[in-house]
């Protein structure tokens, strides 16, 4: 042997890190200790030690085994990061426009109805509105009342019923020199849950982009101190929360527009979701949050990545809500590959093409 055993094993952990396993210093040390316990001379022992100390999910195990084979039985060259997305990407051609983007539903001036115009506007598909109607609808967004979802915390508040608050009761009793008195009760305190919005701004969603931005702005500005985060996804991931914090909707939307570099480009839903989960989601932003994904599910090519990432998101998040602007239309069937791949990992599948459906979304988010 030319290398000390520890050196070889540590080199191996570096190879694992390169292949994308979450290997940290303390894990490496635990691995060395485990290998020493089992006897580092036997390959099977080293493999078992690695499984126990360096893996943290079933996917890790298969990845580990591949690197293990390559490192110790090097018959084929190591392909580090085989799971990472390929470096070269096919050029994104313009996506076909959504099948029924904005046709049908005649011009505004032909609508002469007795019912209040506002109510009609509430139900109209935003993709088919004229400029004037859009301006009126923009003002109506202020009527949306976002309500942050709540979660229980480990702390308690005083309450008139519920479980016994022994400490408080006992303290009061002691104050009266042991004379029993009123029994205090308590219940778990509540805190707002984080809401994370992911807006698809690819070409196929272009006719809805503005309305969805307004919706996002309304949720950010109407939620008070409750945490809300907004990202756009298209060919890349952009965080626009800061832009949307501006009070005035028009300025906020203009600011968001300046921040996002990839308006009406292609869609890489799977990759964008992965980017979100890797950079923000898994670090805590998606954990226990209510995730709202607004997209039509147009995904080019393979959808396995999208399905994997949706599954991952559902495991992290408290609730995953998919809002699809085509959902509310007559005869809609979830047939796009992307939608089909994602649906098993979605808790709520909602429509999102009119103000009325946005109001519905507020309810679902609030109850989550």
């Amino acid at each position, binding site marked *: 042997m030319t290398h000390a055993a520890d050196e070889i094993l540590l080199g191996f952990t570096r190879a694992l890190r390169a292949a994308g396993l979450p290997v940290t210093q303390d894990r490496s040390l635990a691995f060395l200790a485990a290998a020493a*316990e089992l006897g580092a001379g036997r390959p099977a022992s080293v493999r078992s030690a690695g499984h126990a100390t360096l893996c943290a999910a079933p996917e890790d195990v298969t990845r580990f085994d591949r690197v293990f084979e390559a490192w110790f039985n090097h018959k084929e060259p190591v392909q580090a990061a085989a799971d990472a997305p390929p470096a070269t990407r096919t050029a994104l051609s313009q996506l076909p426009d959504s099948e029924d983007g904005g046709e049908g539903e005649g011009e505004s001036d032909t609508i002469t109805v007795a019912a209040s115009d506002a109510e009609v506007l509430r139900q109209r598909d935003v993709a088919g509105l004229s400029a004037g109607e859009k301006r009126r609808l923009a003002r109506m967004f202020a009527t949306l009342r976002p309500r942050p979802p709540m979660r229980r915390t480990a702390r308690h508040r005083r309450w008139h019923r519920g479980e016994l608050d*022994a400490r408080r009761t006992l303290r009061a009793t002691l104050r009266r020199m042991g004379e*029993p008195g009123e029994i205090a009760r308590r219940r778990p305190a509540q805190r707002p849950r984080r809401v994370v919005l992911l807006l698809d701004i690819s070409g196929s969603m272009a006719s809805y982009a503005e309305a969805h931005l307004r919706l996002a702005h309304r949720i950010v500005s109407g939620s008070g101190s409750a945490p809300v985060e907004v990202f756009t996804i298209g060919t890349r991931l952009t965080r626009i929360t800061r832009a949307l914090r501006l009070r005035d909707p028009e300025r906020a939307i203009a600011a968001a527009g300046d921040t996002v570099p990839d308006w009406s480009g292609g869609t890489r839903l799977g990759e964008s979701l992965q980017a979100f989960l890797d950079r923000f989601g898994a670090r805590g932003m998606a954990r226990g949050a209510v995730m709202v994904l607004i997209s039509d599910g147009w995904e080019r090519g393979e959808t396995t990545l999208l399905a994997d990432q949706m599954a991952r998101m559902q495991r992290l998040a408290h609730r995953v809500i998919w809002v699809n602007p085509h959902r509310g239309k007559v005869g809609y069937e979830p047939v796009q590959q992307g939608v089909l791949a994602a649906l098993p990992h979605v808790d709520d599948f909602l429509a999102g093409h009119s103000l009325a459906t946005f109001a519905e979304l507020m309810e679902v988010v609030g109850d989550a």
Partner: protein
Amino acid sequence: MEPTAHGLDVASVEEVTTRIAATGYISDEELATVVFLAMRMQRPLLLEGEPGTGKTALAEALADSFDVPLVRLQCYEGIDASQALYDWDFPRQILHLRALEAVAGTTDVEEAEKGLFDERFLLARPVLSALRQAPAVLLVDEVDRADDEFEAFLLEVLSTYSVSIPEVGTVSAPTPPLVVLTSNRTRELHDALKRRCLYHWIEHPGLEREVQILRSRAPEVSAHLAEQVVTVVQQLRSDAGLLKPPGVAETIDWARALHLLGSDELDLCRAAATLGALVKYREDDDRVRHALDRMLAV
């Protein structure tokens, strides 16, 4: 190698295998190895896997085979420290106060308060009681159901194996308990917690091992029936595309149910009658019936 501080002491992986096999738990080499490591390295063991693959049963088998108490902490949403660690016995504290009053007549608040937070008024919840009873096996079951805050708190206990109670002091285990955490992976656990633990993903067992498990758990079932049942279940798991593929626990239930109906041979009629032991979803029920038709017709 220094000897471990566990009362649970093992010399080799094989010893683990034979010891837990004696209680009727059939493990494979990977699993036995990871248990061995957990004992030697004094690390908690995190077991993940589909429901019904024997995660909880392993902890029971471990406690049984090393003849130490098993302390179980079942997690659920909203669980907090007072349900996991300790609580004060409030009614007894009040009684104590009244007794003091009746006997002495004079009550010094300071003194009374000191007397109130005595060890004897302490209700030990699972974690504290595991630390006190150590060597023991502490099973933290379905940790994925608990909240993030609870995970952080668990992390604290697992890294020091001690609990500090402000009124009493720190309780630490003379020998740390063997901690087994199980998760059905309904959500991702925090990486910090995972890093503390040794990890093992329990797969559904292969044909031969599942027959062994079934034979050891339900010895009354005939060898022939056991083999038939396991063959069918394994096919269902891999091919039928079920919403909830049956776990080993369901296999055992089903075999027992068939045995109770007096069958030594798997036939379509009895299989259909006992299906409730195997599948728990309406949609699966249909699929399994169709699949059984195909399998048993041959």
